[in-house]
C-alpha cells in the first residue's frame, strides 16, 4: 500500500515538472498570439485575458498588411528557402551516392573537406562571401542567398544521406547493373526513391536554419524588394515599436508558418533527430 502511494506521489511530481516546463515553453508564443487579437486597451489592462467580444480586433493585422510588404517578404522567404532546399537535397544525394558507392582516389579526402563545413560555421567567411557577391553583381538578389544557403546546407546533407545510401543492399544494385541499367538511371530511378524517408529528415534540418536566418539577408540582400520575413519583421518592429497591435500581429504572422508545419511534421522531425531511437 505504502509503496504504491509513494510511487503515485513520485509520478505526479514527474508530471508536475514536465507540465511546468511545457507551459513555460508555450507561454510566450501563446501570450503574443492571444494579445494580437485584442484592442490596445485590453492588451495593457489584462494581458493574460482571452479576447472578449468587446476587446476583439484585427486592426493590428490590417496595419501590418497595409503598412508593410508582408506578402512580399513571405514570398522572398519562400524563394530563398525552397530553392536552396531542393538544390541541397538533389546535389547532396548525388554527392552522397558517389562518395558511398564508388571507390576512387581522394574519396576520404573529399569527406573530410565536407566535414569542415559541418564544424565551421559558414558565417565566418562572410567578409569574402560579400566581396564575392559584389564581384558577381549579385548583391540584393535572391540568387546570392540561394547560393550561400545551398553551400551551407550541403555538408550535413551529404553526411546523413551517405549513412542511408550505404545501407542499401548490394544485391539490389548488382541486379540492376546486370540488367544493363546505367549508373544515372540506377541513382535516379532506384536509389533516390529508396532513400525518401532520409531525404524528408534532411529537408527539415536544412529548411529551419534557412527560413530563420537574419545574418545573410541583412548583409547580402537588405533591399526593400528582397527582404526576407525575418529582416522585414525586424525592420517593421523597429519602425512601429509603439504600435503594439501591429507588433504583436507581425510576430504572430512570422511564427505562424513554422507552427503550422510543426503540427504536420513534428513526429517525423523528432524521429529524425533521435535517429530512430524514439518510436
Amino acid at each position: 500500500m505504502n509503496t504504491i502511494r509513494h510511487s503515485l506521489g513520485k509520478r505526479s511530481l514527474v508530471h508536475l515538472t514536465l507540465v511546468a516546463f511545457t507551459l513555460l515553453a508555450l507561454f510566450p508564443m501563446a501570450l503574443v498570439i492571444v494579445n494580437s487579437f485584442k484592442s490596445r486597451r485590453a492588451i495593457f489592462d489584462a494581458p493574460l485575458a482571452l479576447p472578449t467580444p468587446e476587446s476583439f480586433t484585427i486592426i493590428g493585422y490590417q496595419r501590418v498588411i497595409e503598412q508593410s510588404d508582408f506578402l512580399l517578404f513571405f514570398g522572398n522567404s519562400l524563394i530563398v528557402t525552397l530553392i536552396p532546399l531542393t538544390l541541397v537535397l538533389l546535389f547532396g544525394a548525388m554527392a552522397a551516392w558517389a562518395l558511398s558507392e564508388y571507390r576512387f582516389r581522394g574519396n576520404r579526402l573529399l569527406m573530410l573537406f565536407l566535414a569542415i563545413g559541418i564544424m565551421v560555421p559558414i558565417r565566418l567567411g562572410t567578409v569574402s562571401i560579400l566581396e564575392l557577391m559584389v564581384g558577381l553583381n549579385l548583391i540584393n538578389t535572391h540568387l546570392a542567398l540561394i547560393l550561400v544557403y545551398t553551400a551551407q546546407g550541403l555538408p550535413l546533407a551529404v553526411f546523413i544521406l551517405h549513412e542511408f545510401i550505404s545501407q542499401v543492399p548490394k544485391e539490389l544494385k548488382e541486379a540492376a547493373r546486370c540488367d544493363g541499367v546505367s549508373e544515372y538511371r540506377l541513382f535516379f530511378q532506384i536509389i533516390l526513391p529508396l532513400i525518401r524517408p532520409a531525404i524528408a529528415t534532411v529537408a527539415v534540418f536544412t529548411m529551419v536554419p534557412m527560413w530563420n536566418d537574419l545574418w545573410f539577408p541583412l548583409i547580402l540582400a537588405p533591399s526593400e524588394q528582397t527582404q526576407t520575413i525575418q529582416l522585414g519583421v525586424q525592420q517593421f518592429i523597429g519602425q512601429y515599436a509603439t504600435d503594439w497591435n501591429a507588433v504583436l500581429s507581425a510576430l504572430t504572422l512570422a511564427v505562424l508558418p513554422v507552427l503550422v508545419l510543426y503540427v504536420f511534421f513534428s513526429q517525423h522531425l523528432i524521429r529524425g533527430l533521435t535517429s530512430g531511437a524514439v518510436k
Partner: protein
Amino acid sequence: MSHRFPWHLVFFLAPALIIYGVFSAYPLVDTLRLSFFVESVTGERRFSGLTNFYTLLGESTWSNAFWNALWNNIRFFLIHMLVQNPIALLLAALLSLKGLKGARTYRTLIFLPTLLSVVIIGFIWQLILSPLWGVSEGLLAMLGLDFLFDAWLGNESSALTTLALISVWQFVGIPMMLIYASLLSIPDDIIEAATVDGASPWRIFWRIKLPLVLPTLGLVTILTFVGNFNAFELIYAVKGALAGPNYSTDILGTFFYRTFFGYQSQIGSATLGATVATLMFLVILLGVMAYFFAIQRRLTRYQM
C-alpha cells in the same frame, strides 16, 4: 587507355563540390588570408603580416572591445552549460521513465521553440520582460515575488545573463532530445540486471545510465560551444549592433559585425573584420580539438 574517364563521378560530385567549394570553403580560406592584409584609404590591400592581430589584441581601443566580447561570450556559454544542459538532462531523464503517459506530447511541445526564429523569440521576450507591458511583473506579483522585478534587459549587470537565459529557454529542447534518444537506446537487460541486484532507480541513474550517455553529453557540449560562439541574432534583435547597455551584451558575433560594417563614427574594415572572423575560427577550432582529443577519447572507453 584501359580506363574510360569516369564521367558519372563528375556528374554526381561536381554540383555539390562546386557550390560548397566556391561559396563556403573558398570564402573561409580567403577570410583567413585577408586577416594578414591591411587596406589603405583608397582600398588598396597589401600584405602586412600580423599587424591586424597586433591592432586587435594590443591597441587598447580595439583590444578592450575584443576581450570584453570574448569574455561575455564565455559567460554566455557557461550559462548555457550550467543551466541549459542540466535542465535538458533532467527533462530527458523524466521523459525516458518507463510507462510515462504523455511523453510524446511533452517532448513535442518542449521542442517547439527551437524551430522558431531567434529574432522573433528575442522580440517576444523583450515584450514580456518590458516594464511597460508589465506581464512579468504581474506574474511575479501573483506569486508575491514582485519585489524581484527589474528592467533585467536594460541593466548593465543583468542584461547578458537575461539574454543567455532567453537563449537557454529557446534551445533546451535540442540537448533534451539528444540525451533522451541516448537514454532510450540503453539496452533494457542492463537496467533489469541492476534492478534484480537491488539497485535503486536513483543509483541506476547515476551509476549506469549517466556514464552511458556521457558521449552524448560531450556532443551536446561541443554543439553548444559552436552555437554560442557563432551567436549574433538574439543580441542584434534585442540590443542592436551596439550590444548595449555600454557593450555589456557584446559577444564575438556582434563585435565581428561592427568591425566589418562599422557603426556611428567608426568606419568598417573588411580586413579587420576578417581578423575578428579568424580569431573566432581559432576559438571554435580550439573547442572542437579539445572535444576530439581530450573528451571524446576518454569517453569512448565507456562505450559498449
